[in-house]
């Protein structure tokens, strides 16, 4: 669906995207992670053809550099900062339906599906809408033309938790056929949406894979928690201490935990069983994506 060869972008002497080659399949959900200035926004803008670049990008076979307008017709876009338009929601629907070449009713229906029926909200000036309502309105505009590609640049960055969860709920209505590229700092959203993750660093893709691959690559260990009888707790802790460093073992009430790579967890359980220690329950707490990604960049801000 999206294919790039030798994609590079410079601003003055600074290289923002450095010779990228990639292919994104139809319906794939790609999350772009990286430090500020890693090139996430620039990459999205290049895919839309609103920035010049070296190399080539194709969206569904159409060359972005030479057919930018046609390509943008296949793309829906939700920016980070809601744009300021001095018009009502109804006027916005009319305006963007003309620009996107779709009936206004299609956008209205999409708004309706997002809980913003025009009959009730159409008369509101856009500046009267909350950040969450505005982002949903932009998502409605983006999805109304049934785009092949949906690009989102940190769409929930300025939303409160409630608005964020409403936006994420609205996002579930995106067709599975739609290819999605999401630049985000919100790692919980990435876990919820993405089936492919890129980590951009200094204009290059330093990681490309699924969440499991990322965990494995980052060497992020998970906590194995075990619930046992109170009298068996110390014995269980000693067993775990034989498998891991003291800082990777915890005990709390009837719970004992050890931080191990995936390959060591079965053995840990087996050791407890071997010693006839009762196991009432066990579960694995995977590390947060944020923790995993930070391993790529030390303690830098993501």
């Amino acid at each position, binding site marked *: 669906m999206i294919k790039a060869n030798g994609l590079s972008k410079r601003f003055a002497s600074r290289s923002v995207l450095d010779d990228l080659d990639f292919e994104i399949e139809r319906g794939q959900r790609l999350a772009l992670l990286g430090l500020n200035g890693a090139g996430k926004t620039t990459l999205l803008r290049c895919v839309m053809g609103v920035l*010049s670049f070296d190399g080539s990008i194709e969206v569904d076979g159409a060359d972005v550099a030479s057919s930018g307008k046609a390509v943008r017709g296949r*793309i829906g876009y939700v*920016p980070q*900062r809601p*744009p300021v338009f001095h018009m009502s929601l109804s006027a916005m629907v009319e305006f963007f339906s003309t*620009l996107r070449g779709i009936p206004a009713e299609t956008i209205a229906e999409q708004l309706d599906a997002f809980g913003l029926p025009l009959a009730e909200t159409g008369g509101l000036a856009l500046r009267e809408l909350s950040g969450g309502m505005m982002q949903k309105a932009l998502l409605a505009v983006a999805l109304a033309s049934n785009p092949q590609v949906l690009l989102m640049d940190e769409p929930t960055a300025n939303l409160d938790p409630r608005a964020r969860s409403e936006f994420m709920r609205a996002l579930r209505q995106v067709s599975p056929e739609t290819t999605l590229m999401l630049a985000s700092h919100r790692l919980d959203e990435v876990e919820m949406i993405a089936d492919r993750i890129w980590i951009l660093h200094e204009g290059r893709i330093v990681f490309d894979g699924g969440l499991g691959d990322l965990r494995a690559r980052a060497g992020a260990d998970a906590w194995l928690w075990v619930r046992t009888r109170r009298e068996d707790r110390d014995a269980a802790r000693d067993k775990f201490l034989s498998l891991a460093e003291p800082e990777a073992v915890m005990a709390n009430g009837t719970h004992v935990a050890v931080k191990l790579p995936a390959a060591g967890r079965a053995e840990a359980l087996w050791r407890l069983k071997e010693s006839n220690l009762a196991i009432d329950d066990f579960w694995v707490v995977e590390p947060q994506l944020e923790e995993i990604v930070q391993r790529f960049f030390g303690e830098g801000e993501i």
Partner: protein
Amino acid sequence: MSRVSVIRTLVRRELGESLRSRWFIAYSAVFLLGALALTFFGLSGSDIYGYRGFAKVMAGLVHLALLFVPLMALFPATAAVAGEREMGSLEYLVSQPISFGELFWGKWIGVSLAVALSLLIGFGFAGAVATLNGTPWRPVALLLALTLLLAETFVAVGLFCSVIATTRARATGAGIVVWIVAVGFGTLAIMGATLRWGLPRLVLSAWALGNPVEAFRLGVIASLDPDGSLLGPVGLAWMTSLGASGVIALCFASLLLWTLVPTAFAWWRFRRPQAWSAL
């Protein structure tokens, strides 16, 4: 979606944005009131002074136009790109399936129409009052045409400033500097240089025509004063060699050039894809 309907939609929006601007409304209202007051009071003595009474009105309208028209044009034009860039709406607009050309010309036409509409109302009323009081329509129409072109010049200058500036404040500031140089410094400089160095006629002519405000002033005076007595030695020489029509045509050409060149530069900058962004 056809190119025409996209441009029409963008023009309609730009027109609405300009007409809603408080600065624009304020300048237009003051301009309308000023034009009506000048016309009404100026013509009150026309039964005694005849055509000279109308010439007084025209001179007053010229000064009014020089003061207000460039500002009326600059405010919406400088907001058109830089203002939208600040509000994030430009980024969203360019992400739509429209070309940079459609967006740029939609803005250009929209702002031009808004300014023209305001001028037509202001000078339209004043012109109607004047012609109903026996003033010949030809000089009134010429004044209106030159004023529209002067406005268009400053729309082009404002749009250029708007495209190259990173913020609306900087764009407006740059536009106002151009206006001050053209209105104040330009005239003072031409007078000072003539007194100090006695500049040759060719240099003076180029200087006068190179300043859109001077070109506007000369064009209007040439239409009112066919013998060239009010134009000074350079103007008189022009009138002798080119005739009033020739001088007016030259002034039109100067204003047209002043419109085309900044518009071309603005378009050249805007069509480079990253010009829209604040990067």
